[in-house]
């Protein structure tokens, strides 16, 4: 366990004696005695594919439930919540960026960015409180991420480049000031010279909104951009060999 500067607030994320297996007759994919992230922290989590990264993210998002142990997000124990409360909790507090295909093809850019507000009144209120309206916040975030041209925002998302799509996804994850942004290999579909730029922008905006960032990647060249790096193998005692 890394001894980071003692958190002033409750940790944004705390795993304790977590064990997870997909099926009863399979060996556990994850066995994590302890893992914490402080509020507002930026963490680079590395690990080869198949190491259980996606599973870990599903546990943190409250979509998968551990068979043993506790997953606390913002001090709230997820296994203690019902399925509905977990979905609500995820909508209110988490922003998630996937590897690719993050956007709904039938919504224009702006509406894609504002999607979290559809599922979370709390995020909607946050956005309105900070920028006056949902759309104002969406535009501000997109602008900060280098997407401000009005023509671009009205185009169907399918016409954007992959790099642009990932930045739209980042803006969406940050919409309504979530406490934790989870990015699951968000740069793997980008060109090498675009990756760094994306990470910089994402980190900058997470800092600006006070969100913690859990950045999962196997691209070690990006690790240096994060104050703290961690390999999943360091915290996971299980040794999964199959799929994630």
């Amino acid at each position, binding site marked *: 366990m890394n001894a980071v500067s003692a958190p002033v607030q409750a940790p944004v994320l705390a795993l304790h004696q977590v064990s997870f297996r997909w099926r009863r007759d399979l060996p556990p994919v994850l066995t994590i005695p302890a893992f914490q992230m402080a509020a507002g922290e930026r963490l680079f989590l590395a690990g080869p594919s198949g190491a259980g990264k*996606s599973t870990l*993210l*599903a546990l943190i*998002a409250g*979509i*998968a439930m551990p068979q043993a142990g506790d997953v606390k997000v913002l001090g709230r124990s997820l296994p203690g919540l019902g*399925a*509905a409360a977990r*979905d*609500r909790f*995820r*909508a*209110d507090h*988490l922003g*998630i960026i*996937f590897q690719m*295909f*993050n*956007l*709904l*093809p*039938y*919504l224009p850019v702006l509406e894609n960015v504002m*999607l*979290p507000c*559809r*599922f*979370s009144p709390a995020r909607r209120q946050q956005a309105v409180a900070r920028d006056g309206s949902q759309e104002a916040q969406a535009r501000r975030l997109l602008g900060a991420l280098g997407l401000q041209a009005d023509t671009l925002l009205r185009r169907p998302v399918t016409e954007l480049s992959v790099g642009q799509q990932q930045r739209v996804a980042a803006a969406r994850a940050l919409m309504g000031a979530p406490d934790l942004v989870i990015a699951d290999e968000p740069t793997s579909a980008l060109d090498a010279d675009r990756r760094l730029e994306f990470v910089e922008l994402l980190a900058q905006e997470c800092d600006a909104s006070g969100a913690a960032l859990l950045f999962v990647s196997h691209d070690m060249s990006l690790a240096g951009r994060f104050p703290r790096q961690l390999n999943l193998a360091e915290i996971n005692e299980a040794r999964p060999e199959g799929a*994630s």
Partner: protein
Amino acid sequence: MTVLSLARRSLWNRRSTAALVVFSVALSVALLLGVERLRTEARESFANTLSGVDLIVGARSGPINLLLYSVFRLGDPVSNVSWDSYQKLAAHPQVEWTVPLSLGDSLRGFPVIGTTTDYFEYYRYGRGEPLRLAQGEQFDDVFDAVLGAAVARRLGYGLGDSIVLAHGTGAVSLTKHDDKPFTVVGILAPTGTPVDNSVHISLEGMEAVHVDWRGGAPIPGLSIPADRVRNMNLTPDSVTAVLVGLTSRRAVFQVQRQINTDRSEAMMAILPGLTLQQLWDLMRVGENALLAVSALVLLVALTVMLTALLTGLNERRREMALLRALGARPWQIFALIIGESLLLSLLGALLGVLLLQGLALGAAGWISGQLGLTISLWPPTLHELKILAALLAGGILVGLWPAWRAYRNALADGMTIRM
């Protein structure tokens, strides 16, 4: 709200497939409602082929047979009612009016009816509509003829035209009454009943063309010219059938029994409404088959919808996972699919009704001219609303399976997607 608006947007994104589904649902709705409406109208119109007539009297045979030849002018009468019996019937205290019908001749396949001018007064169809002359007047002279609307249109006859009747009811007749031609003096307005296909002449006219005939053939060597016939006694020996109106409808069974049990002649009286109903029941098999076919078409349309939904599901797994990550609950994923199927069937139903309405408006003139049916869809009947409700219920039912699969996928996939 959120979910339904997403369903709408998502559907719009796949609008070409969705349009095909909506169109197939619309076509089947239009077919089903159209068949249903035609069926109802046809039955009603059929039941109203003849109205205001209390009894039809003819020689004793079967009720449907009597109805067929007296009203629909189909088939041949077994025998006739004697003039004496007819007179006796007309004089019956409870009989208000009688219209005698004499059949057997034809005009190029169209039946010729010998009758009296009372026919124009008492014959009623539909909801008591009287016959109306479109042109000209009722017959007066022995050799006057009044044509039904369809006869005049199909054969191209107008007022003043001369027509030659043929003996017998076939379309091609070898024996013609060409020595005694008739003149068209009137043409009736369309009724949508067999009257349209009939040629009406007076009983005397019918008698006149047969005055020099015996046993269904001209008497060899005897030919009486038309102008001499006028001066002869043209009272017929018999009539084929008699339409009877009673002073009181309550007497109908009593008078019917009296006629049926008359010892002087083997006659039969039928209640037209009742017998029309029996005749319609004979055709119920066809009617039901038609309905079954349209119901099957609806089933096919729903299957098309199911196919489209299930196919779309795989392409949309990513979309579902994304929505889950954003905090959408599994039931919202479920509702997304159900909402989509509901939207598709709703649009289909709406378009179907519009389609049929447009068709009915466009073809109203033709239908009423050809079939004498008035097809109007507005307001929809309770039965039709039930059909539409059943369609929507079917749409939801069809959506259940893909929705359930999407729900299961959403739970199993979580945020990741396993292709």
